């Protein structure tokens, strides 16, 4: 069940078809790019649907409820039903919004989250694009989410939306710092920014960076939870204070795009954590992509577990925690790994 040759096979098929038709080679490249993107998007969409369902089931069971039970076996069709409902909804545009900003905000958010999947190694040889600056690219492209949130907050012309947008901008920019610094420890040890090289460096279980960089893993996990605006760091959409935060004026499919981007982000940070700290797709017996998914879902579970354990932080506590606690820890991690391994 190894899918190692999937992208190469696609490459070959497309190239032979295009050359048979006598078209220039850039057409082959374009089709291949679209094909790979479609595969990743498909997998991403399935993962979003699964995560939404799983989140609801876990939320239920953490509270000793069942969660969705009536749509399909244990409610597995629930996300599909929700999606159909959201597609049918009217796309309401409030009168005083900034139209273009309001329009493009969810698109940018989804695209930025989705673009980061280009350098995620899904399995042995299953990496859509093996950039030699992979992790840097992820950090750069995910930061665009801040712009999207600010756009949503500003464009909605609503005080709650603006407050939510500003909060999330402050939060994401702050937590970007310990997040990057915690990843730096891994980069120092692998001497490479390439995701493939990082996975290759964790060939044995005792080489996993979670054992070599436990502090870095913890800092990454906490900072990443904050990055995705999830509880206990969900002040940008704190329901009790901001109604819904930056997405309050959004409805229908535009709201759904924010929602999907949120879960895509959750999957993304978990996939990065699995790749950087848990040995990526490496593992015995099972195919590599199953190992990758298992490890990623394990991290997703931990993040959801956080959500149902910890109460939301106040805004000042959030900032204090980041700058006074996480940042020194991240620096300590870099210094310690510098002394120990070089």
């Amino acid at each position: 069940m190894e899918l190692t040759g999937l992208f190469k096979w696609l490459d070959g098929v497309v190239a032979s078809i295009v050359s048979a038709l006598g078209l220039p080679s850039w057409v082959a490249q374009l089709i291949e790019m679209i094909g790979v993107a479609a595969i990743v998007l498909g997998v991403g969409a399935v993962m979003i649907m699964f995560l939404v369902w799983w989140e609801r089931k876990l939320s239920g069971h953490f509270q000793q409820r069942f969660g969705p039970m009536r749509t399909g076996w244990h409610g597995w069709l629930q996300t599909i039903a929700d999606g159909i409902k959201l597609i049918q909804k009217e796309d309401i545009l409030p009168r005083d919004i900034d139209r273009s900003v309001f329009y493009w905000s969810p698109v940018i958010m989804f695209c930025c989250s989705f673009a980061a999947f280009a350098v995620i190694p899904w399995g042995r040889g299953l990496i859509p694009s093996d950039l030699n600056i992979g992790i840097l690219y992820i950090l750069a492209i995910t930061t665009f989410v801040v712009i999207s949130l600010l756009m949503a907050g500003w464009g909605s012309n609503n005080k709650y939306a603006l407050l939510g947008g500003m909060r999330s901008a402050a939060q994401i920019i702050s937590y970007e710092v310990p997040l990057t610094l915690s990843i730096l420890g891994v980069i120092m040890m692998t001497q490479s920014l390439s995701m493939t090289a990082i996975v290759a460096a964790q060939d044995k279980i005792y080489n996993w960076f979670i054992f070599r960089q436990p502090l870095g893993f913890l800092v990454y996990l906490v900072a990443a939870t904050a990055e995705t605006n999830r509880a206990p760091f969900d002040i940008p959409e704190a329901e009790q204070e901001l109604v819904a935060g930056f997405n309050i004026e959004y409805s229908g499919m535009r709201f759904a795009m924010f929602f999907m981007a949120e879960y895509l982000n959750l999957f993304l940070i978990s996939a990065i954590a699995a790749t950087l700290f848990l040995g990526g797709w490496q593992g015995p017996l099972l195919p590599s992509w199953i190992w990758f998914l298992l490890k990623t879902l394990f991290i997703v579970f931990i993040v959801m577990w956080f959500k149902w354990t910890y109460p939301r932080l106040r805004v000042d506590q959030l900032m204090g925690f980041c700058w006074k606690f996480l940042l020194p820890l991240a620096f300590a991690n870099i210094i310690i790994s510098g002394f120990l391994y070089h």
Partner: protein
Amino acid sequence: MAAKIKVYSGIKNLIIGLGVTIRHLFSHAVTLQYPDERWEMPERSRGVVVLLSDKETGDLNCTACILCAKACPVGAIWIERHRGDDKRWKLDKFEIDNTICCYCGLCEEACNFDAIKLTGKYEFSAFDKESLTYDVNRLQELGLDVDYEPKRKKPAPKPAATPQPKPATDASAGEAKAESAAAANPEAAGKSPEVAEKKEQPGDSAPAAETKPDDNNEEKGA
């Protein structure tokens, strides 16, 4: 130094918190899957009001004494009745308006004949208010599967019991039961006198008590 200790105990508490939630995750859900599963209602729960029938004859236990209508604090019970040929009250109409019923159970307490009872049934929502007024057929139908234990009969009130000679009422009660039962179920007709005998005391007391104030009216509404 104090801050340091706080950090350690804080981390410890965070881990304790995670332990608490994971325990809840793996303990069994308390939710009842309502339309598929239902609570077993306690025997004395006060849900929708029904009229009980005799288990053997299938007749209503109601003797049209209107004690329940009088006991009802909100006037949800409407009874119309007339004197039969055997001088016993016959029901013309027995209606309970569930929109004003407050499920206090006073009608059940007032009833001497195990005729009216509050049950554990609670699923009787409807689309219009009119259909929530249940007539005698609906009330009887609802009461068919209700299991009840015959009440311990109260001794008849003295002024009511003395003027009526006992054998006469016994016979009339037996006849009334037998007549109606024979129409519905000829086989059960033989058993009905026994039932009537069991019920002799309340059978003679309450109608007698009720006749005095209501003698001049053929119909009585409450």
